[in-house]
């Protein structure tokens, strides 16, 4: 009964989100304009893709307990991989995407196989180092492939016309929504699968998994590669949405912002990751606007400087969540629900 209700609510929300481009709803203070306007749709689509990426990171960090600081590498691999293939070859979009996905899987396999030789903090640092190497490659622009600091514009020849240009933002919005739904379902699938259960067991007690004859290393590698491939897929959609690649997506800071989103939402919670990512993206956007507003410009330096740096506010906010809101938004919601639940029983008695 309860499950059916949850499912219906989810489907309803999804239908509403899918219809947004056809509706004219203003959400003042949150969205820049009416929901059918390209600017708004672009921002919302960015929210969905970020949420999908955060979900893939949550699979890694929340489910398998692997704190990677290099998840951006596979996202960037998707963006740049597809950008380069479309730029340098005549391969159409879908085969190109398949090719890039294969490349992403291979990259994740090699990096994962090496970094999983260490655990805990060392694993975090090693994944960071590999991602940094990727960042260096992208920025160095060897053989004019990546465009260096300038980034790379999307070569639209191989891309269907329906996915190109501001007029088609609506289609890109739907694409982003589909990607989010797809990633959500895949993540749900993996979590519920046998391998997903073993991964959770490895997170809980690795020695015990070995004692019952399981293989923690392989389990972790499977989850690592799957999470990375999802990031690659999201990256490719991101390229289409932004119609270009920028080196900022390959930085360690980008992975750290993913970490911020997941922790904000609540580690291990799927909807927490989605809400965390959407909230983060919207905040980032709104805070940037606040930074350039006249109200802030008129303030004394002590207030103006912090308020004009969105990342400062987000970082501070994150520190406060870690210190005072264990379990993030999902944890807070759970505690709230737990506090409310006994009340009716008491009333009945």
């Amino acid at each position, binding site marked *: 009964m309860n499950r059916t209700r949850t499912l219906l609510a989810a489907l309803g929300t999804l239908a509403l989100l899918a219809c947004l481009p056809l509706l004219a709803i203003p959400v003042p203070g949150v969205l820049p304009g009416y929901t059918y306007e390209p600017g708004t749709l672009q921002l919302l689509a960015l929210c969905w893709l970020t949420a999908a990426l955060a979900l893939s990171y949550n699979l890694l960090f929340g489910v398998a307990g692997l*704190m990677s600081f290099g998840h951006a590498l596979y996202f960037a691999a998707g963006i740049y991989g597809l950008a380069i293939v479309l730029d340098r070859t005549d391969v159409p979009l879908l085969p190109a995407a398949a090719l890039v996905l294969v490349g992403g899987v291979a990259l994740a396999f090699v990096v994962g196989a*090496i*970094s999983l*030789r*260490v655990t805990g*903090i*060392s694993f*975090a*640092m*090693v994944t*960071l*180092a*590999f991602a*940094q*190497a990727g960042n*260096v*490659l992208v920025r*160095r622009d060897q053989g004019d492939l990546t465009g260096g600091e300038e980034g790379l514009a999307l070569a639209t020849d191989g891309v269907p016309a329906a996915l190109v240009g501001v007029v088609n933002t609506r289609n890109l919005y739907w694409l982003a929504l589909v990607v989010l739904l797809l990633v959500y379902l895949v993540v749900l699938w993996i979590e519920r699968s046998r391998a997903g259960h073993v991964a959770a067991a490895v997170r809980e007690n690795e020695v015990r998994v070995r004692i019952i004859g399981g293989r923690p290393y392989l389990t972790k590698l499977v989850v690592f590669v799957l999470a990375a491939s999802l990031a690659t897929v999201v990256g490719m959609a991101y390229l289409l949405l932004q119609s270009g690649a920028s080196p900022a997506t390959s930085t*360690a*800071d980008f992975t*750290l*912002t993913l*970490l*911020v989103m997941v*922790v904000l939402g609540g580690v291990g919670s799927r909807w927490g990751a989605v809400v965390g990512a959407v909230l983060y993206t919207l905040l980032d956007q709104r805070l940037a606007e606040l930074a350039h507003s006249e109200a802030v410009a008129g303030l004394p330096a002590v207030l103006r*400087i*912090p308020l*004009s*740096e*969105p*990342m*400062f*506010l*987000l*970082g*501070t906010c*994150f*520190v406060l969540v*870690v*210190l005072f809101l*264990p379990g993030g938004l999902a944890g807070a919601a759970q505690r709230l629900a737990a506090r409310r639940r006994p009340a009716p029983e008491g009333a009945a008695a």
Partner: protein
Amino acid sequence: MSTLILLIATGLGLGGLYFLVASGLSLIYGLMGVLNFAHGSFLTLGAFVGLAAGNLVGAGTWGGLLLGLVVGALTGAAAATVTELGLIRPLYNRHIEQVLVTVGLSLATVALFEGIWGPNPRNVTRPGWLASTTDVLGAHVPNTAFLNVLAGAAVLCGIVAFLRYTRYGLIIRAGVENRAMVTALGIDVRRAFTLVFAVGGAAAGLGGVLATQSLNYVSPHMGASLLIFAFIVTVIGGMGSLTGAAVASVVVAVLQQLANFYLNNTGDLIVVLLLALVLLVRPSGLLGRPA
């Protein structure tokens, strides 16, 4: 031949900088199990404040630099102390959360530094001797390399002496082995934590001012970029091993310089490859205790 000497000399200088950052990371990790992501911010803050103090005496003078180094180290120490007391201590023994707050702190502080000092690098004025080179067997070695090696060696000796001959050093060495037992001997081990953070922060602040002299600029991002190499150095040397960090700093930096020159600017990539290789052969690092 002279090229090789130059590369090794500049490598050693860079290694000195890496060690200044890695020593703090390694000490903090060894005693407290905390990976300190905000360590780069201590460095950047030390650099900016140190330079500002030096400029009061006179930009490009030795007196200014000396004051800058002292103030930079003190600033780093102060920032680290505040961080430990305010953010790390309340999360006692919750290592993941401790890493997360330092991540948040690093994101926030870099943004704040950008807000205060602008996002772009600024040139610095160096004392004349530091801006020039010295002839060593035909190689023109930048004088900053000597200063960095000297500072790295001095900090290494200083920390080793501190650990070996002081009571707090004794507490820290014991704490690395068994923290609970140190407490059970009636010692407030948390004071040692704060002290280790302060010492690490001082080394980073010092490294920050020195880095401005080598790079000839100061920027809000210099901490973050040095921090990544310091991480690599810490893993290669063996997490928590000070001598390991020293050896790895030199190896990594020299290799990086050589690869940059002989292998088409691939220094950064070679370093990551070295990291992969070390992990494959010896996952606990060069001088780390085998798990």
